[in-house]
């Protein structure tokens, strides 16, 4: 989150920088002035003649044009086009004066702005920066305000050369050289207009290029700043990590020594060493809990009892119980596990609330914890178990039962559960703990609708090794799948009763090869009677496949 904020700040700084540069750029381009050109000549010394002819008593600005090799004579400077236009009107001149625009002291109307051509308009932005300037030939001067000059594009060229001449008649009394030059310029108006358009494009390209340079510079700057920030962050993080790690290591070292001393050297548990008694900081509590759990899961006896005392004395059990209220599932799971491992029996009620938790890990931890903590009724939660028990959960519960030497309950009471996985788990446990009293309750499960339950029931029935079960197994045999059929044959095989040979003999003629082999092996395992029976079959049968199977089973090398 902090990093995101930091990057946003840098982005804002970057944009501000860009805006600042753009503004600087605007200011640089925004100096526009308008002057009145009264004449042009190839000689600078014509200045006095011009003053005389025009009758103007104004200071004349002389501007030399490199391209036309002419001296341009200008008066006044105006900030707006309107001001220049008003002044031009007030002159009531007939010598062909016109308005010239300067952008940053550069003449913008170089060749185009002869006596008959004027800047029709310019497109400017709010900072008076020229976006587009269009010059048209023979356009009469119209009163155009800078703010409204962005009309140009759509406006058609309205006037003709004649119309322009009416407004600005061709000078007659101006000196010859100037007139000649003006004529030449007039002839090349169209070409010049086109040239200007090209020049404008070049101008705008330069400006775009500059912007691109600025953008690139800002990107480079942003990247450099990001890298520096990243390095600083990594550096700071490394420092913090080193500090935390060295602090933890130091505490861990002291803690281990004190813990060992507390377990084996202290006379009583009443007094605790300082590292064990003052556990206020979170990191200390975490390390202490971790170490206690590690040791507690590995040792038993008086040392383990002392660890338990230490755990409860420090209030770590209450902290774990409190942590069960936290929203994160991982915190819940860890704390349930902790309470279970440390045998905190008072947490049973709290832990039982997580038996049907949505999160699988929390649910599994709660189940294992219940087996461990609820010593009187370790599997009572199975009564209300609605969610399926996975094999992993079943294994963990069995492991908890064995590891904590808990007396297994009568699992037959869950054989009628509506949850099939609970029934299967109970069947497995009945088998594991040889709960032979459950035999009568297991038999009906051979007809259970779920084939997995039937499979577990067959295995459990087999484990009882009771002759009574054979009849039930034979009855169900035909409709079962291969896995269940195989389990039934193996169950009958374990009984080793000659009375079962007839049933097994029939199975040798079964269409499934594996069944044939299993049945033959079962007959052979019954003993001399079984082998004799197979020998007889070998002598009387003509089926080559069966003969091969029997020969294979009777081969002493396979015994």
């Amino acid at each position, binding site marked *: 989150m902090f990093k995101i904020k930091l990057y946003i700040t840098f982005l804002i700084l970057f944009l501000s920088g860009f805006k600042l540069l753009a503004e600087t750029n605007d200011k640089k381009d925004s100096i526009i002035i308008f002057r009145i050109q009264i004449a042009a000549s190839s000689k600078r010394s014509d200045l006095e003649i011009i003053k005389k002819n025009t009758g103007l008593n104004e200071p004349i600005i002389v501007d030399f044009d490199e391209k036309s090799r002419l001296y341009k004579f200008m008066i006044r400077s105006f900030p707006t086009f309107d001001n220049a236009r008003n002044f031009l009107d007030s002159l009531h001149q007939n010598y062909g004066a016109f308005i010239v625009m300067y952008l940053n002291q550069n003449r913008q109307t170089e060749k185009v702005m002869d006596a008959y051509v004027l800047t029709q308009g310019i497109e400017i932005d709010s900072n008076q920066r020229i976006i587009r300037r269009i010059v048209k030939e023979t356009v009469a001067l119209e009163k155009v305000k800078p703010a409204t000059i962005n009309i140009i594009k759509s406006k058609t060229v309205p006037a003709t050369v004649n119309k322009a001449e009416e407004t600005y008649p061709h000078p007659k009394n101006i000196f010859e050289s100037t007139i000649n030059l003006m004529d030449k310029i007039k002839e090349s108006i169209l070409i010049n207009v086109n040239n200007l358009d090209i020049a404008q494009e070049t101008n705008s390209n330069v400006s775009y290029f500059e912007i691109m340079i600025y953008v690139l510079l800002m990107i480079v700057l942003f990247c450099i700043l990001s890298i520096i920030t990243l390095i600083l962050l990594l550096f700071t993080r490394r420092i913090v990590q080193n500090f935390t790690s060295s602090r933890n290591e130091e505490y861990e070292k002291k803690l281990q020594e004190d813990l060992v001393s507390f377990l084996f050297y202290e006379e009583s548990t009443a007094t605790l060493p300082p590292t064990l008694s003052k556990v206020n900081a979170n990191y200390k509590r975490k390390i202490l809990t971790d*170490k206690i759990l590690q*040791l507690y899961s590995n*040792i038993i*006896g008086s*040392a383990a009892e002392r660890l338990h005392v230490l755990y409860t004395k420090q209030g770590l059990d209450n902290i774990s119980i409190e942590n069960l209220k936290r929203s994160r599932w991982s915190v819940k799971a860890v704390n349930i596990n902790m309470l279970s491992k440390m045998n905190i029996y008072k947490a049973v009620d709290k832990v039982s609330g997580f038996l049907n938790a949505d999160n699988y890990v929390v649910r599994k931890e709660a189940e294992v914890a219940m087996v461990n903590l609820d010593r009187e009724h370790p599997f009572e939660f199975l009564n209300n178990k609605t969610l399926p028990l996975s094999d992993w959960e079943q294994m963990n519960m069995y492991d908890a039962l064995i590891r904590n030497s808990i007396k297994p309950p009568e699992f037959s009471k869950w054989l009628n559960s509506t949850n099939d996985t609970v029934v299967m788990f109970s069947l497995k446990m009945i088998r594991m703990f040889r709960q032979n009293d459950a035999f009568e309750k297991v038999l009906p499960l051979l007809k259970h609708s779920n084939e997995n339950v039937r499979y577990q029931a067959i295995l459990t029935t087999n484990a009882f090794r009771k002759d009574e079960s054979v009849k039930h197994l034979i009855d169900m045999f035909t409709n079962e799948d291969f896995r269940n059929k195989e389990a039934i044959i193996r169950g009958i095989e374990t009984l080793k009763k000659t009375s079962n040979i007839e049933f097994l003999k029939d199975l040798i003629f079964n269409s499934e090869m594996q069944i044939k082999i299993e049945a033959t092996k079962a007959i052979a395992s019954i003993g001399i009677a079984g082998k004799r029976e197979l020998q007889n079959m070998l002598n009387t049968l003509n089926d080559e496949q069966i003969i091969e199977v029997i020969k294979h089973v009777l081969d002493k090398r396979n015994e």
Partner: protein
Amino acid sequence: MKILVCENNEILLKAIEGRLKLEGHDVITTMNGREAYNFLEKEKVDVMITDILIPFISGLELIFFVRNQFKYDFPIIILSKLNNMDTIKYAYRLGADEYITKPFDPDWLEVQIKKAMINKSLNTKEIKVDISENRYSLS
């Protein structure tokens, strides 16, 4: 008695060390099989206690090296969470003398060490019985 303990759980290693030192033993601790191997290359100990699942060289491999490479005959006690019969049998076959499964009682460790020592002596040395004083000794 010089005892080499090889256990990768640090706190448990400290606990075993503490408990054995309490009995006055000289305890050398290592947290992986390679450290133990390197130590045994240089020195012999009186008893070795090792876990099976340790880094670099497993406890079972360590037994193999002790018995076949270094040709040491000191008692080796396995201290492991592995509780299956195949592993236990394999450990004995390699040359382990005792197999203790975790969780274990540290107070019983001393008894197990003595038991392993006596078994080793019985297997390798003659028992001299002094009938007159009604006691026996190992030589």
